[in-house]
C-alpha cells in the first residue's frame, strides 16, 4: 500500500474497484442472459475451435438424419411394391398351373389368358410405383416412367426406360446406402443359364454356344416334298401342304386297306367317292402330315421313301435351307444379335419351335407370352401350347425368385438404415452434451460468480463511500 496516499489515489482506487466489480457483474449477467459461456472467440479461443468443429459435425449429422428421413419412405414404398409384385406373380403362377392342365377347353384357357394379361398390366403399374417425383424402379432415371406397355397386333411388349444405376445416399461419415433397386434387376433377366427348346420339330442344340435373350421362335418351313408315294398315289399340290421334313416312309397295305406314315396311326384308304379320296391327310405320331391323292391308286401294297425339304429361320427373318446332316448350324438373327446353333439331323416336322434362353428374360415378357399362349394366338396344338407354357412357367418361377431376392436386399438396406439412424441419434446426443459443456453456461457457477461479484461490489461501495468522506476539513474550524 501507498506510503503517502493522496485524495487522487484514493478516488482512483475506489473507482477502479467499483468498475472492476461492476464489469464482473455485467459479464456474469451477459452469460446468464445468453446462456453461453463463449460469446466471442476471444472468450475462449480453444473452446471456440472445439465448439465450431462440434457444431459442424452436428450440422452434418442433422443432414444425415434428414437423408435417413427422406430415404425411409423410398425403401418402404419399394418394399411394399415388391410385396405386391410377389403376390401378382404368385397369382400368375396359380393361373398358369390351372392353364396347363390338359382338361381345360380353349375358351377356359382364353379366359385365363385374359386374366394373365390383367395381371401383367397390374405388374406394370406396380413397377411404375412412384414416391414424390421419384419412380422407385427406374435406376437413376428417376423422373421417367420406367415401364411402358405397348400392344400391337395382339402382341404385348413392355419396355424399360430406366437404367441399371444404383442411387446411393450418405447416411453417415463415409457410409453410403443404396436406396433403389433398378427395375432391370427386379423384373429383368437374372443370369443366362441355358437354352431350352420346346421340342416338337425334333431339332436339337448344336455343339457351339448360343446367345440370346428371352424367347425366340425357330421357324421350320416345309418347302417341298420329294420322292414318290408308291401304288400310283400322288402328292396333293405336289406336296406343298405337307409338314414333313427329312426322311419319312409311307407304307400302303393293300390287304388291310391302310396307309401309314412312318410308325404312325393306320389310316383307312378312303372310299373313292369321298372327298378325302383326292386329299387324305396322313399324320404320324410326331404330328407331321402328308396329303395324298388316291386318284391313281393301283391297289398294290408299297413302301416309299418321302423326303421333306425345308428351311429354317429365327423369328422369321432369313430362311436358310436345311441340310439334314448339319450338327452345328449357326443361325444369326441380325436384328437382335441372337445366335443359335442347332443340330438338324433329327428334324422331322415343319413347325414353330419356341426357344427359351432361360434366365435371360424379363418377367413382363414371360407374362405377356403366357397370356398369348393361353389365348393360343399362334394357333398351336394343345400339346405344343402346353410345352410352351411349361417353358414360360419355369421362367415365371425364376422371376418370382428374383423378386423375393430383391425384397431381401431391401430388407437388409432397411436394417442398415435403422442401425445408421440409431448411431446418428447416439452421436447427436453425445455431441450435443459435449458442445453444451464447452459452449453453454453452467448456471450454478455463474450465479455463484454473480453473487460474489455483487457482494464485493456492495462492500467496495460501502468502504469507498466511507473512505472519500473523511477529510481533516470536517474537524477544522
Amino acid at each position, binding site marked *: 500500500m501507498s506510503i503517502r496516499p493522496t485524495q487522487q489515489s484514493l478516488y482512483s482506487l475506489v473507482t477502479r474497484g467499483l468498475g472492476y466489480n461492476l464489469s464482473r457483474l455485467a459479464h456474469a449477467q451477459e452469460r446468464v442472459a445468453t446462456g453461453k459461456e463463449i460469446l466471442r472467440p476471444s472468450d475462449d479461443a480453444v473452446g471456440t475451435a472445439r465448439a465450431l468443429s462440434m457444431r459442424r459435425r452436428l450440422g452434418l449429422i442433422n443432414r444425415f438424419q434428414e437423408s435417413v428421413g427422406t430415404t425411409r419412405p423410398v425403401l418402404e414404398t419399394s418394399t411394399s411394391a415388391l410385396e405386391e409384385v410377389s403376390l401378382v406373380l404368385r397369382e400368375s403362377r396359380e393361373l398358369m398351373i390351372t392353364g396347363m392342365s390338359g382338361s381345360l377347353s380353349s375358351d377356359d384357357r382364353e379366359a385365363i389368358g385374359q386374366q394373365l394379361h390383367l395381371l401383367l398390366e397390374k405388374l406394370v403399374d406396380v413397377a411404375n410405383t412412384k414416391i414424390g417425383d421419384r419412380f422407385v424402379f427406374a435406376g*437413376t*432415371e428417376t423422373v421417367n416412367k420406367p415401364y411402358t406397355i405397348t400392344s400391337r397386333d395382339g402382341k404385348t411388349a413392355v419396355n424399360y426406360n430406366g437404367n441399371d444405376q444404383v442411387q446411393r445416399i450418405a447416411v453417415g*461419415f463415409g457410409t453410403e446406402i443404396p436406396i433403389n433397386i433398378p427395375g432391370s434387376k427386379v423384373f429383368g433377366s437374372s443370369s*443366362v443359364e441355358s437354352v431350352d427348346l420346346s421340342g416338337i420339330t425334333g431339332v436339337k442344340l448344336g455343339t457351339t454356344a448360343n446367345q440370346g435373350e428371352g424367347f425366340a421362335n425357330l421357324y421350320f418351313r416345309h418347302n417341298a416334298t420329294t420322292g414318290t408315294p408308291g401304288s400310283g398315289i400322288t402328292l396333293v399340290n405336289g406336296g406343298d401342304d405337307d409338314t414333313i421334313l427329312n426322311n419319312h416312309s409311307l407304307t400302303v397295305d393293300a390287304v388291310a386297306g391302310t396307309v401309314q406314315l412312318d410308325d404312325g396311326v393306320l389310316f383307312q384308304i378312303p372310299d373313292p367317292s369321298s372327298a378325302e379320296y383326292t386329299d387324305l391327310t396322313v399324320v404320324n405320331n410326331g404330328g407331321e402330315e402328308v396329303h395324298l391323292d388316291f386318284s391313281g391308286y393301283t391297289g398294290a401294297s408299297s413302301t416309299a421313301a418321302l423326303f421333306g425339304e425345308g428351311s429354317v429361320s429365327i423369328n422369321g427373318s432369313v430362311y436358310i435351307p436345311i441340310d439334314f446332316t448339319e450338327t452345328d448350324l449357326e443361325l444369326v438373327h441380325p436384328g437382335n444379335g441372337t445366335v443359335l446353333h442347332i443340330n438338324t439331323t433329327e428334324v422331322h416336322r415343319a413347325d414353330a419351335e419356341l426357344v427359351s434362353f432361360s434366365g435371360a428374360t424379363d418377367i413382363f415378357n414371360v407374362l405377356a407370352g403366357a397370356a398369348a399362349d393361353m389365348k393360343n394366338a399362334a394357333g398351336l396344338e394343345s400339346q405344343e401350347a402346353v410345352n410352351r407354357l411349361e417353358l414360360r412357367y419355369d421362367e415365371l418361377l425364376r422371376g418370382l425368385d428374383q423378386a423375393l431376392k430383391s425384397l431381401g436386399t431391401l430388407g437388409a438396406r432397411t436394417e442398415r438404415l435403422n442401425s445408421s439412424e440409431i448411431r446418428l441419434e447416439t452421436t447427436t446426443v453425445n455431441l450435443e452434451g459435449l458442445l453444451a459443456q464447452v459452449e453453454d453456461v453452467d448456471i450454478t457457477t455463474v450465479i455463484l460468480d454473480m453473487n460474489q461479484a455483487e457482494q464485493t461490489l456492495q462492500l467496495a461501495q460501502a468502504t469507498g463511500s466511507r473512505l472519500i468522506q473523511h477529510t*481533516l476539513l470536517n474537524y477544522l474550524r
Partner: protein
Amino acid sequence: MPGIGLNTGLKALLAAQAALETTGHNISNSSTPGFSRQRLEVTASRALLQRGVRIGSGVSGNTIVRSSDALLLVRTTKQIATVNRLDAALGGMTEIEALMGEPGNFGLSSGISDFFGSISELSASTEDLVLRTGMVQMATAMTTQFNQLSSTMTTVRRDTANQVEIQAQKVNVITERIVMLNEEIGKTEVSGVPANDLRDKREESLRELSSYVDVQFNEDQNGVMRITTGGRLMVGGNKAFKLESVVGVDGDVEVFMEASDVPVKLKHGKIAGLIEVGDQFIPNLQAKMDRLAKNLIFEMNRLHSTGTPSEGNFTTLTSSYRLEDQDQDGSLSDELISRSGLPFDIQSGELFVNVTHRTSGDLNSTKILFNPNETTVGDFLDELNAIDGVNAALNSFNKIQIFADAGFGFDFAPRLNANPDKYGTLGGDRASLGAGQAGPYSLVDGDTMNLTGPVSSFSVAFNSVEFEEMSQATAEEMAAVLNSNADMQSNGLRAVVTADRLYVQTAATGVASTFTLDGGTSLAALSMAPGSTVFGSSTAVDLKIGGAYTGEGNNSYRFVPTSDGVIGTTPDLEVDVYNAGGQLVATLDLGDTYQPGTEIEVAEGITATFGFGSLSASENDSTLVNLIADSDTSDVLAALGINAIFTGTGAADIALRDDLVANPQAISAGFSGASGDNRALLAMMGLQSESISALDNDSIGNFYGDTISGVGFEISQAGSSREIGYFLLQNLETRREETSGVNVDEELVDMVRYEQSFNAASRFIQVLNELSDEILSLI
C-alpha cells in the same frame, strides 16, 4: 537592534505567507491532472554578528520547488505507450471479431455448413427442384458472407488508416505545444527560477504524446526537452518535426517524419496499435480467408466440372477465367496453359472428354494428356478440335469456349464405356491381325510390310519422314502411314490402334473378309509372324462392360485371350485382364461352361459380358477399357473454370456461377445426366471433411475454425497484456501520486502550521514594536 529584529519578523511573515499561498496553490490544484505538489524551500538566514554574538536573522524562503520523480516519468511514458498500443489494436481486432459473428448461428461457419448441408439434402433427392434452388440459395448466402467479411475488413482497414492520419495530426499539435513550453521554460529558468507549472504542463503533454507514439526524451542544461521516437528526432530545441501518414498501394499505412522518406518504425502507442491492426492483423486474416475461399472454389470446381447436369451433357461451355498473353506477343496460343495468368495450378495428368451422339447414344471418350511444362493453350484447343463432334476456340474475352456440333453433346464425367471394343479388335467380325506387343516400335528407315488383299499383293514402306523418331515409332504413326497407302485403300484394308497396338483389319465384315500378311522387314519389330492369313467371322464378340469402378485413381483394363477358340464352346478358353501397370488382375473363363451373355466379375466393381463369337490369341486380339476415378487429373477444367460451380479467386469475389443462379438445373449433380444420379454431389459432400494440402492438410471447416480460434487467441492474448499493462500503469500512477500528488489533509495541516507561523511572526513583530515603544517612551 529593532531593525534587525523587525527584518527577521518580516521575513518570517513573508515566508509564512508564501508557504500558505503554496499550500493554497496545492489545494486548488489537488485534482489538476499532471500537477506536482509544490513546496516552499525555507532556510535559516545567515546569522549576523551583534554584540559579539552571532544572532540568526530569521528565515528565508526563496524558492518554490515541485516534488517529481524524473525516472518515474520515463517508466510511465513507456507504459502509457504500451497500454495504448494494445488498446488501439484491441479496438480494431474486437471489431473484426464481432464482425465474424462466431461462434453463433449466423457466422460463416454455419454458412459453410449450411451450404454443404444443402448439397447433402439435394443428394438424397436430386430430382427435387426446390432443393436445387435451396442449394443455389445456400451457396449464394455463403459466398455473400465471404464477400461481406472481406469488404468489411477492407473498410475497417481503411478506417484504421484514416485514424492513423488523424492521430498523426494530434501528435503534431502536441509536439508544437511542447516546443512552445520548451521555449517558455527556458526563458523562465534562465533567471534561476524553476518553472514548476510549465514543467508540469510539459510532462502532461509528454504523457499525452506517449499515448500516441513511444517516446524517448532527455533534457539539456537549459531545461529544454528533446524527444525522439523510433530513433528519429521529433522535438529538438525549438523545432517540432511533423508526423505524416501515407497509405501505400497495397493498403499498408506508413508513417514518415517531416523531410524524410524513410518510414518511422513505431513500436508502441496508439498509432503503432492501429498500424498493427491495419498492416498485420487484418491483412493476415484476409489472406487466410482468401486462401480458404480460393481452395473452396478450386476444390468444388474440380468436383463439379466433371459432373453433368440433369439436363444431360453440354452443347456449349465457356471458361470463367481469362487467359493472358504473358509474353505480350499478341498471340495466346503459344502460352503454356499453366502460365497464362490462371489463378490455379495445372497438374501433369489427363482429361477425358466424352462426346455423345444425341440420338444414337454412341459415346466416344478421348483422353487429353497435360504436361504443365509443355501443353500450350494452342495445344489444348487443337486436341479438343481433333475430337469428332467438338470444337473449341478462344472468345473475345480470351476465355476458352467449347461447342458441340449439332446432334452431339459433350461432358467430362468419369464415364465407363459400356462398349469399349469400337474397332472390333477383340473377336470382331472383320479379318483382323494385331501386333504382338504394344508400341512404340523400333523401326528403321525403309522398313516394309507386305500384304495380300482381295485385289492385289503390295508392300507398304515406312520412311523416317513420316515419324518423329523412327526407333520409337508409335502405333498411331504407323497406322497413319498404312491408312494413307493407296494399295491399302484399294484392297479395303485399314489400320487401327487399340491400347498402343497396331492392328491391320479389313474394312468389310463377315466370313468372306480376308487378307494375308506376307512378310516385310517391319514384322520383327511388331512381333508379327509372316505368312498369316486371317479371316473375318459372321458374329462379332459383343463385349459389354458394366458395374461401377471402385478403384483409387485412374486405370485401364486390357483384355487379352490366352488361346484361340469360340466363347462358351471351346474348353479352357480364357481371357486375361491386365491393368495399366501390366499386372494380371483377373482371368476370365469363357470356355464351355460359360454361357454367352452372362455377366462375369472382373475386378474393382467392373463386370464384363461377352457375347457369342470367337477370340484369337494367335491374331493378337485385345481391347482396352479405360477406368476413370477422376476424369480430370490435370485439374485443367477447374483451373480454367469450365463447368465451374464458383467463380472468383478469393473471399472478395467468390460467387456462384451466374447461370447456375438463373438455372439451378444446370448444377452438375451426377456423372450421367440421369435425374437420380447424385454421384458428383456425393463427391462434393465428401469435400467437407477432406483434408486439403493447400490448407495445411486441414478440412475447409477446420481451417476456418482454426482461423477463428487464432483470432480469438490473438485478441485474448492482447486483452490480458493490456490488463497487465493497465495494472502496471496504475501502479506507476500511484507511485507518482505518492511523490507528486496533493494530499488535502496534509495541506490543511500545513495550512494550520503556516497560519500559526504567520501568527507567531506577527506576534514577534508586535513584541518588537512594543519593545520599540518602550524605548521611545524613554526618550
